[in-house]
């Protein structure tokens, strides 16, 4: 199948190095301490953060740092076929673990010992790159909840199809069976905290694809900063500062 036309356009009309449209909204769940809604093209996710609060299960309490928990779920209507997936299948367990460890890398957990932070992410519509979108949403929600962080974490994926590196794969490109590299970075230091790859790719090409995904992450970071700044200004106005 042809994923890049001779004119250099992809199936959805993007250029190989072009991202899908980003859209973010802070404050999507009323009861949560922090929440956000994030869109990458047709991938739509919602994230809610509760905490820092008292540890629910005392045996899990940590005396030198906060306990971070994360739950990733996909809505039944998020994919093309409306199949009821059992809760806690291997894929979502793994993604929950990945998101938790990625967010832990940026949260200053040592400031909140004996407390717990819960992150819930829900995929409303899946069109490739759900774990990237979830991480971006979780970052926004954590920032909204006012949880101290070293840096934001942003994530983006890239792939390699028709011997072209492609940024931000959608579902059709993702399920083509080609390599899929998901990168999560701490944008201030450009250090890589999350890196996942599937399928087979020679080492030098992998470097290029990873570089491309990192550039994507930086673009996401800029957008997220803008959104946060806007929200802060809005709040300032509201409080009449």
């Amino acid at each position, binding site marked *: 199948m042809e994923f890049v036309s001779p004119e250099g356009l992809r199936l959805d009309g993007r250029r190989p190095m072009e991202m899908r449209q980003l859209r973010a909204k802070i404050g999507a769940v009323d009861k949560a301490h922090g929440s956000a809604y994030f869109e990458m093209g047709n991938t739509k996710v919602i994230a809610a953060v509760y905490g820092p609060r008292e540890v629910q299960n005392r045996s*899990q309490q*940590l005396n030198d740092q906060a*306990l971070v*928990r994360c739950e990733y779920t996909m809505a039944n209507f998020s994919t093309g076929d409306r199949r009821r997936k059992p809760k806690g299948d*291997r*894929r979502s*367990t*793994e993604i*929950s*673990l*990945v*998101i*938790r*460890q*990625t*967010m*832990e*890398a940026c949260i200053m957990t040592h400031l909140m010992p004996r407390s717990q932070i819960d992150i819930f992410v829900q995929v409303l519509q899946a069109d490739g790159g759900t774990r990237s979108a979830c991480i971006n949403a979780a970052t926004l929600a954590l920032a909204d909840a006012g949880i101290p962080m070293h840096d934001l974490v942003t994530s983006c994926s890239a792939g390699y199809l028709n011997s072209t590196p492609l940024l931000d794969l959608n579902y059709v490109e993702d399920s083509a069976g080609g390599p899929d*590299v998901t990168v*999560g*970075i*701490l944008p201030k*230091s*450009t*250090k*890589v*905290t*999350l*890196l*996942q*790859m*599937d*399928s*087979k*790719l*020679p*080492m030098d090409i*992998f*470097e290029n694809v*990873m*570089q491309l995904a*990192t550039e994507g992450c930086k673009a996401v970071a800029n957008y997220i900063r803008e959104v946060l700044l806007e929200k802060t200004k809005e709040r300032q106005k509201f409080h009449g500062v």
Partner: protein
Amino acid sequence: MEQRLASTWRMSVNEKKFIESSLLSDLRADGRRPFDYRRLTIKFGREDGSSEVQLGNTHVMAFVTSQLVQPYRDRPNEGTLSFYTEFSPMADPSFEAGRPGEFAVELGRIIDRGLRESKAVDTESLCVISGKLVWAIRIDVHILDNGGNLVDAANIAALAALSTFRRPECTLGGEDGQELIVHPPEVRDPIPLIIHHLPVAVTFGFIGKESIMVIDPTHLEEAVMGGRMTVTLNTNGDVCAIQKAGGDGILQSVIMQCLRIASVKAGDISSKIKNAVESFNTERALRKIKRHSSSSAVEVSEPAQKGGTELSRTHVGRLNSTPEESGVGQSNGMEVDGKILQQETSRRDSGAQSFIGGPSSW
């Protein structure tokens, strides 16, 4: 989560400090240098498709089994490959019996991705009747002792078990030609899987504030380290899978350095696996010959020593030229009936000088 806690609890602050500070001068608690792999031993069970891997103190067992099932509807021509892990509670106090924990799931997914997405095992050759019957290959990995770096050990065990696994041959027959006959191993030699390449996982740990890189971390180092990265590579230099699930951030240049180191290590490990598999196959073939020779009329003088392999292979080469034998490979050559054997023996007798010791296994 719970698993991580338990292993941390047992460690005192002093122990952690010791590991971190000794690494600053390129020393590790078990005497290795940062880029040394632990001693790796691969053993096989008597039957096909079972392996036992020991990596330092880590002890892992893998079993491969097969079953005829209906294929998935979207892939009617492909067999399936599934991967299951069993974290025995005796391996580590933090492992609990019952449902697999988060880490068990992650380990399974890393190995599963490395094997399946890179198409290491040819699944199309596992198809028997399109859309109706395919072979389902199941890999069970049991963790017997946790000495750290379970991912690499489990991956090696899985690869070794897959390379020695053989499934029974089956053909269509009967009156209408639609009946499936599964031949028992005594009648027709079981067929090995087609494995295109060996994706070998190599794990790095990042310890301390400076994120010092170590390869193949022990369980003590795992309790200290801030980040982990597993890269799966094959000998062609292709990256088959990478997993770095959060943790300390590292620079891209460090990642590329890891990949280069890992590709060297992956080469070492895969040649080790190949050697182990080869010697298992030789042994297996020799065992088989003994059984056959007792029933056939050939005189057997004494069991073969080393070197018999090479000679027996030359035999296979010759046998293949006879019309009865169409298959290739060592095992097929061994399964000749008495007639060819007799032929072969007489031929051998004529040139007895050149066959010292080796062929006596025939």
